[in-house]
C-alpha cells in the first residue's frame, strides 16, 4: 500500500503538467481530426458540415485509397513473413553458435538508429542508374546481368518493392536484437532437462524456443505491424509516393491530401481511418497471441 497521503493539489501539481500536455497534443488533435473528417474544409475559409461524405468518397470513389491500403498491408506482410522469421532464425543461430554475440548484434542493429533521411537518401543513391553511381546497377553490370538493371525507384511496378527492401533492411537488426534478448532469457536448465529427455539442437528449438519466445515475438509483430501502418517517412524521402501514386501508403496519401493539397476535411477522414485500423489491429494481434499463448502454456 502506498504510504504517501497527499492533498489533491499536490497530486495535481505532479500529474497535471504531463497529462495536460499529453491530452492536449495527442487526444485533442485526434478528436479534432475525427470532427474535421466530417467537414468540407480547406483549412482557411469557411467549412461546411458534410457528415460522412468524406468517408463515403474515401471508401468508394478514391482510386488511390484502396491500392494505398493494399500497399500498407503489403509492407506489413513482407515484414512479418520475411523479416521476423529471419530475425528469429538468426537470433537462434547467434545464441547457439556465437560466443561473444555483442559485436554481431550491435552491428546488425546499426541501421536502426540512423535517421530515415540518411537511410532513404543512401538507398536512393544505391538504386541510382549505374551511370549515376548506383551500387546495385553497377554490381549487376559488373557480373554481366545488365538485363536485370532497373531504374528501381521510377518504375511503378518495382518501386514499392525497392522501398520494402529498405524497410526490411533497416529494421531487421531491431527484431534480431529483441528476439535475441528473448532467446537469451530462456533459462538454460530447461535445455539441459530437455537434453536428458533426448531433445537437442533444432528439436529443442521446436519444443522449447518457439513456444517460449511467443511473448517476445508478439512484441516484434506489434512493432512491425504498427510500424508498417505508420511508415511513410521513408516513402516521403525516397519517392514522395511516386511515380504517380505507385508507392503511396495510407499515411502518405493522408499527408499528400491534407498537407500538400490542403483538403483538410478529406485528409482528416483518412487520418481517422488510420487511427481506427491501428487500434483494431492492436486488439486483434493481442487477441491472437493470447490464444496462442494459452495453447502453449
Amino acid at each position, binding site marked *: 500500500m502506498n504510504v504517501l497521503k497527499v492533498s489533491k493539489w499536490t497530486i495535481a501539481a505532479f500529474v497535471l503538467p504531463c497529462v495536460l500536455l499529453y491530452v492536449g*497534443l495527442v487526444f485533442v488533435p485526434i478528436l479534432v481530426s475525427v470532427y474535421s473528417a466530417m467537414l468540407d474544409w480547406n483549412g482557411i475559409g469557411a467549412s461546411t458540415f458534410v457528415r460522412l461524405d468524406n468517408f463515403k468518397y474515401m471508401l468508394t470513389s478514391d482510386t488511390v485509397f484502396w491500392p494505398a491500403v493494399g500497399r500498407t498491408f503489403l509492407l506489413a506482410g513482407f515484414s512479418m513473413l520475411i523479416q521476423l522469421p529471419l530475425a528469429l532464425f538468426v537470433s537462434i543461430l547467434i545464441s547457439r553458435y556465437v560466443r561473444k554475440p555483442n559485436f554481431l548484434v550491435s552491428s546488425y542493429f546499426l541501421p536502426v538508429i540512423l535517421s530515415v533521411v540518411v537511410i532513404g537518401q543512401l538507398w536512393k543513391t544505391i538504386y541510382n542508374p549505374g551511370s549515376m553511381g548506383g551500387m546495385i546497377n553497377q554490381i549487376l553490370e559488373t557480373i554481366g546481368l545488365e538485363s536485370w538493371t532497373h531504374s528501381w525507384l521510377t518504375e511503378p511496378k518495382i518501386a514499392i518493392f525497392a522501398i520494402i527492401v529498405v524497410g526490411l533492411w533497416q529494421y531487421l537488426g531491431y527484431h534480431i536484437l*529483441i528476439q535475441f534478448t528473448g532467446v537469451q532469457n530462456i533459462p538454460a536448465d530447461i535445455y539441459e532437462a530437455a537434453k536428458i529427455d533426448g531433445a537437442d539442437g533444432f528439436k529443442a528449438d521446436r519444443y522449447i524456443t518457439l513456444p517460449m519466445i511467443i511473448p517476445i515475438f508478439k512484441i516484434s509483430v506489434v512493432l512491425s505491424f504498427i510500424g508498417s501502418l505508420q511508415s511513410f517517412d521513408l516513402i516521403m524521402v525516397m519517392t514522395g509516393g511516386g511515380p504517380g501514386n505507385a508507392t503511396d501508403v495510407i499515411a502518405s496519401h493522408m499527408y499528400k491530401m491534407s498537407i500538400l493539397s490542403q483538403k483538410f476535411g478529406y485528409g482528416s477522414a483518412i487520418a481517422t481511418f488510420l487511427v481506427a485500423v491501428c487500434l483494431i489491429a492492436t486488439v486483434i494481434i493481442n487477441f491472437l497471441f493470447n490464444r496462442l499463448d494459452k495453447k502453449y502454456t
Partner: protein
Amino acid sequence: MSRTAITATKPAATVRTSGSRFSVAKPLIYIVLGILLVTQLYPLLWLFLYSFKTNDEILSGSFFSLPSVWQIENYSAAIESGNYWRYLGNSLFVTSITMASVIVLAALAAFAITRFRWKYGQLVLLLFLLGMMIPLQSTLLPLMIIFKNMDILNTHLSLILPYIAFQTPISVFILSGFMKAIPHEIEESAIIDGAGVFRIFRSIILPISVPPIVTVCILTFINIWNEYILAATFISSEKLKTLPFGVNSFVSQYSVNYGAIGAFLVLGALPVIVIYFLLSERITKGMVAGAVKG
C-alpha cells in the same frame, strides 16, 4: 513487461554448443551470419567511401573500390554549401530541451502514479497506454491547425511541444515500472525524518531511478534526433531546420557534386554513430526496454 526480460542473464548458449553433430554445419552458419553482417554494414561503408570520391570515380562503375585520392574537399564543399553547423545546433537544442522536459514531466507523473495513495493512478496509466496505440501521423494535420492558430508554426516550440507529448507515454511507462518496485519503507523513514513529498521525490526517488531515466534519455534521443516528418511540416525557415530536415533539403537540391552529397549524408549520420560507438550496449538495452514495455 518484467524487467528480467531486459537484463540478459548468462547465455544459454554455452550448454548447447556441445552437440558434435553440428560441427559440419558450423562453418555454414558463420557464413550465413557473415553475409548478413556484410548486407547490414556494407551500404554504410559504401556511403563512407563514396563521400571521399570524385565524380568521375563515382560514375565510373567501381562499386567496390577505395578512392584513389581521399577527397576531403567533398566535406568542406558540403559544409560550405549547406548549413551543417546550424542544423546540428538546432537539433541539439530541440533534442536537449525535449529530453529534459520529458524526464521532469514523466518522472513527476510516474512518481504520483506509483507512490501516492489515491484512486486514479491506474486510470492515468491506462490513459498513457491508450496513447501508445495511436499513430502519431494522424495528429499532424490537427496539430498544424492548432499551432497556426496559436501562431507558433515555424518555431522550435511547434516541434518541442509535440515531441514531448509523443515521448511521454513510453517514458511514464518505463519510469513507473521501475518506481513501483522501490520499497515503501524508504518513504516511511523519510517521513519520520520530516521530509516533504517534493523532498522525497528529489532526494530519494529520483537518484534511485537513474537507470530507467537513462533508458528514457536514450529512447528520446534516438526518436527525436531522427524525427523528420514533423520538422519538414512545421518548419519552413532555413535557419530553424533540424539536422534530418536540413540534410534532406540539401541533398535534394544539391545535385552537382555526388561526393559532397555523400559527405553531407555521412555528416548527418555521424553524431548518432559516434554516440552509438560510445554507448552501444546501453543503447541496445534501452531500445529493447522501450520495445518490451511498449
